[in-house]
């Protein structure tokens, strides 16, 4: 039974997706999609208690690794599996057929199928222990993302999706080429096997070139500086539940892949960590500065994501157990906060759309305010816990520049967070302000807000630090 749990989070959405298309009913499609995400979330939550027992693996078709494909769930990817599935669940609850109204002309089931396949692809990247499988799942999730982004309400959505397709496919192709180099250098695709053979390969340069190509591909997909330009355009173009889902977990999965492949499998060590630290710190400042000057609401939050994702990469670049703990907290904290913010904003896309929200929709206003507080890092919220863990980890490692950069970007965060709150609280409602949807739309951001406080008040996310550091070999 417990063996099935290892593959359920990936397989369930993959198997339900064709069923959704088959049934062809939008109501049933939505229900099935929510149900699949719910069960996948519960399955990945059920994997957590045994986290301390070390990695568990599932052999597909009963072929032993390194010949067959195996899934390996350890302390680093199991918590992220939960994050991915939970954010998909919340986004799917929000994406009712009524929310999508009119965008698809009867093709809503395809939207839900794409959503589920995207989820399955992201979970697959996390779970698989096979380098080529990473490429396949990356492309599954990417292809679905292009379709989902193109479903956005703006006339330019298709163009944004196309530009993302070009960049994303280049990134994916670099990953494919990198895997090819690794295959040439070692003759294997299994990650555990690669980790043993890469350092002692007689074709060291080939292996290194492969690692660089892989890093390049995933740096693109994770919107790491300086390859972040696609992110604001995509977040602005996509339908809002999709933006919430992508913001909560998609780029984080790519960061996971970067860390797993560079620091664990290829064991590039010092050099890769130095590079991670550099692009993370520049990205943190660059993203925060860009967020301050955006005129579009969603683009501002997207640039803030670039900055916040930099925190995760910086935390990993410290190379200590405390750093990994900070990264795990930031994974969950940013997932809950940014995902929740996009869910609470709903279809609002400009600052004017938020004018007078305090009077129009007090509940939504309250959640937006609380989530923005979290983004700021106000005590009691997950944002504070994440920043505190990151600052103490940086101090522990004696990384003075990092300490300064994180504090400076937190000050910049005050600027863009106030820009978000100003129309909500201070401006009078405009007469023709768009009516934001209600009812079911309140539940997902409310859950995200609750999660944010739960993460801030309990050491739950921090408890993943140790198993994750063990998985990377940075803790006994």
């Amino acid at each position, binding site marked *: 039974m417990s063996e099935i749990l290892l593959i359920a989070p990936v397989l369930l959405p993959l198997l339900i997706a064709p069923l959704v298309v088959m049934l062809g009913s939008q109501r049933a499609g939505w229900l099935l999609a929510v149900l699949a995400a719910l069960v996948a979330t519960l399955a990945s939550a059920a994997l957590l208690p045994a986290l301390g027992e070390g990695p568990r693996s599932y052999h597909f078709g009963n072929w032993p690794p390194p010949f067959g494909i195996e899934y390996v769930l350890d302390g680093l990817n199991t918590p992220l599996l939960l994050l991915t599935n939970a954010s998909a669940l919340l986004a799917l609850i929000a994406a009712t057929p009524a929310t999508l109204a009119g965008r698809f002309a009867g093709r809503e089931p395809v939207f839900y199928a794409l959503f589920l396949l995207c989820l399955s692809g992201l979970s697959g990247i996390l779970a698989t222990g096979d380098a080529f499988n990473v490429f396949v799942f990356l492309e599954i999730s990417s*292809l679905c993302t292009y379709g989902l982004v193109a479903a956005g309400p703006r006339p330019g959505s*298709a163009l944004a999706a*196309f530009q993302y397709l*070009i960049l994303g496919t280049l990134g994916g192709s670099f990953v494919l080429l990198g895997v*090819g180099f690794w295959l040439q250098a070692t003759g294997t695709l299994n990650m555990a096997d690669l980790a043993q053979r890469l350092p002692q390969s007689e074709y060291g340069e080939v292996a290194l070139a492969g690692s660089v190509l892989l890093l390049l591909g995933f740096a693109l997909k994770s919107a790491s500086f300086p390859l972040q330009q696609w992110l604001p355009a995509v977040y602005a173009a996509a339908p809002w539940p999709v933006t919430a889902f992508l913001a909560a977990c998609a780029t984080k999965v790519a960061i996971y892949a970067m860390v797993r492949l560079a620091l664990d499998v290829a064991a590039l060590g010092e050099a890769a960590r130095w590079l991670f630290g550099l692009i993370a710190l520049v990205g943190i400042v660059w993203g925060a500065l860009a967020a301050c000057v955006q005129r579009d609401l969603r683009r501002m939050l997207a640039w803030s994501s670039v900055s916040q994702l930099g925190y995760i990469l910086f935390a990993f670049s410290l190379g200590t157990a405390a750093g990994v703990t900070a990264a795990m907290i930031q994974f969950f904290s940013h997932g809950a906060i940014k995902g929740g913010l996009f869910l609470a904003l709903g279809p609002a896309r400009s600052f004017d759309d938020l004018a007078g929200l305090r009077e129009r929709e007090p509940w939504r206003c309250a959640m937006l305010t609380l989530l923005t507080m979290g983004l700021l890092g106000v005590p009691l919220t997950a944002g504070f816990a994440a920043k505190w863990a990151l600052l103490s980890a940086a101090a522990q490692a004696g990384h003075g520049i990092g300490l300064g950069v994180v504090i400076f970007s937190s000050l910049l965060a005050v600027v863009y967070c106030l820009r978000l709150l100003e129309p909500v609280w201070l401006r009078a409602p405009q007469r023709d302000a768009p009516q934001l949807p209600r009812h079911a739309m309140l539940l997902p951001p409310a859950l995200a807000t609750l999660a944010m406080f739960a993460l801030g008040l309990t050491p739950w996310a921090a408890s993943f630090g140790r198993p994750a550091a063990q998985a990377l070999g940075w803790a006994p």
Partner: protein
Amino acid sequence: MTLWASQLFYALDGLLLVTGLYLVIAQDNLVKKLLGLSLFQVAIFVFYLSLGKLFPGGAAVLLPEQSIYSHPLPHVLILTAIVVGIATLAVGLALVVRVQEELGSTEEDEARLEDRRR
């Protein structure tokens, strides 16, 4: 001889790769960009296939008269990657159709201007 041939082969394949990449970057037409992207991917497929080739070896089919086979794994991997490439091309072309319908052009700068204007 074989080393020289394989070096030449890699050089030509690299040329194909950067030609595709150049088209993606330099072309303004969305369809031409997609063609460049396909060329880029094909270069990677060819690279993979070259990995499995052994010079005296034949196809990886059990035959009594041969004992050395080309490595079949890269072929299987590339079959998957080709399917991914076709799917990408199809999605890309579908998006170009939508761009043409909604923004009235398949030239990237014109479509972008139209997008800004709205």
